[in-house]
């Protein structure tokens, strides 16, 4: 009964032989939202580059990561894929809210209830002292299922605006839209997490995984994010 979290998963950079050299910066991003919205699929898509054939319920917290290159700097993006069921969130996931650099809220565009849960999730994050200074984004997943849409872009956008978050709509299944292949270049999921990474890189006070990195990258122009559907963070704020 091994879930996607164990045997099937791969994560490109975790074997000891390919451990990044010290001073690789690490961005920790926690992914939260109701059960079934596709958190595991999204994180898997980003770290493994494909839609998982099957996922199983996430129990507790799963962890995926990927090394990316941002303006010549290798950065490790750590995704914390959390359990959606409420009982886990209340007492188990807490531990993992600490020290995260960004939060990704996920709802399912074909499931209005998952959208209605968002305030509770946001509240939860605030309780764990993750205030508005921690970058947060909102992701509406499963956009490939157009016929069963329950949450309109407008509604979601309004909500995102009221919480000062950028909204992204995408599909872990076919992130480049139905016509396109799943090449990373045309991949919204890729763009979403990279946007967050860029945002984090451009933030001044950075929490480093290892003691001082003397170089700090220049502010990054986030030209891509907007094209890819991100709204809410104006470029100037990056």
């Amino acid at each position, binding site marked *: *009964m*091994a879930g996607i979290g164990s045997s099937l998963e791969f994560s490109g950079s975790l074997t000891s032989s390919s451990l990044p050299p010290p001073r690789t910066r690490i961005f920790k991003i926690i992914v939260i939202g109701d059960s079934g919205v596709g958190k595991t699929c999204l994180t898997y898509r980003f770290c493994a580059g494909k839609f998982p054939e099957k996922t199983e319920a996430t*129990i507790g917290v799963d962890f995926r990561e990927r090394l990316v290159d941002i303006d010549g700097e290798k950065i490790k993006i750590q995704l914390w894929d959390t359990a959606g069921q409420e009982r886990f969130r209340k007492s188990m996931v807490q531990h993992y809210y600490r020290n995260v650099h960004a939060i990704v809220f996920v709802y399912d565009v074909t499931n209005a209830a998952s959208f209605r849960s968002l305030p509770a999730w946001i509240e939860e994050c605030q309780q764990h002292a993750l205030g508005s200074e921690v970058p947060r984004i909102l992701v509406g997943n499963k956009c490939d299922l157009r016929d069963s849409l329950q949450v309109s872009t407008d509604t979601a956008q309004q909500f995102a605006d009221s919480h000062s978050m950028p909204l992204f709509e995408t599909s872990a299944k076919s992130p480049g839209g139905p016509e396109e292949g799943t090449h990373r270049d045309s991949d919204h999921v890729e763009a979403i997490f990279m946007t967050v990474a860029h945002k984090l890189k451009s933030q001044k006070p950075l929490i480093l995984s290892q003691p001082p990195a003397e170089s700090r990258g220049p502010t990054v122009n986030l030209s891509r994010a907007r094209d890819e559907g991100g709204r809410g963070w104006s470029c100037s704020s990056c």
Partner: protein
Amino acid sequence: MGKKQKLAEIHQALNCDPVDIETLRRAAVSKGGLLTDEIRRKVWPKLLNINVFDLPPKPGKDVRENHRDHNQVLLDVRRSMKRFPKGKQLIDIILDVLKCHPQLHYYQGYHDVAVTLLLVVGERMALALLDKLSNFHLRDFMDPTMDSTKHILNYLMPILEQVDTELHDFMIRAEVGTIFALSWLITWYGHVLSEFKYTLRLYDFFLASHPLMPIYLAAAIVLHREKEVKTTECDMAMVHHLLSRIPQDLPYELLIAQAQELFDHYPPSVLAKKAALQSRKSLSISTFQAFQLSTLHQRPDSVLQRLTKNPAPSSSNMALLPREPSSLWGQGNRVVKMAVWGLSATLGAAVFAVAQTAMEWGPEVLLQLF
């Protein structure tokens, strides 16, 4: 001991009157476990004090209607369907148990336990086993919150501390916590093992053991990987990642033996004292003794079959009653009634009935009784 000899011993134990439960437990724990599914179908019910001739009826159609956990169960079962085709039965037995016991709350991972039982023993027997397990071994996981589960997880680090202080301190420094072992504990490893035969082997072990045994096995696994752990970066993410992925080729027989050894050396009561684990009521732990007592006086299947064929008048009336969740089988009384009707009036049944009632009053009452 050879396989043949073990088989003979198991059969002999099954035919004793009362059933030789100690021998069955030893067989389930010792090398190779219960060997085949055929034997599991005979022994698992005995380990849980279940009369296979008086099983609950198949869940009715109405079981799937409006239960608070219905959607979550559906979602979890559907996602595990590719591997396990019996989705409908799985949903039914889960919801049936939940409906019978409103105090039990579904958790993601419960379906992994249910499916393991279902695949080995079939629907009706799986229902009986799941019902019993949910009220005893898994009981703590089924509270409205996971606080009791957290408490059980808290036994892990003290075990490590006893055996390997260095490893323990390393993990404390990394602040890894114990969530990496959460799915191991609440699914009895069913969620994380890709080879079903290993899952079954572990179920043999756990069905014959104390409810905390999955934690002792977790400790044995972590200790087994001690070198890997210590050479990992001392960081929560790295250690969590390393530990939460169970290598596929673990030497399970060895680890089971080690877990048993750890349990014998550092029983829960000792750990609780040493580690000053905050005293929290664990239903699984506090009812275990009564549960074990209740298994001591079971009749062999040959006798049970005879008794069930020529049942006492009262029990034949019961058999004619239509299945109604709110009537005789419902509302948490099923287990008691099964014990009382299914067994002849032995001490076991009496003890068990007491245990059930007492559980509703709270474990203190229970402890006073034994």
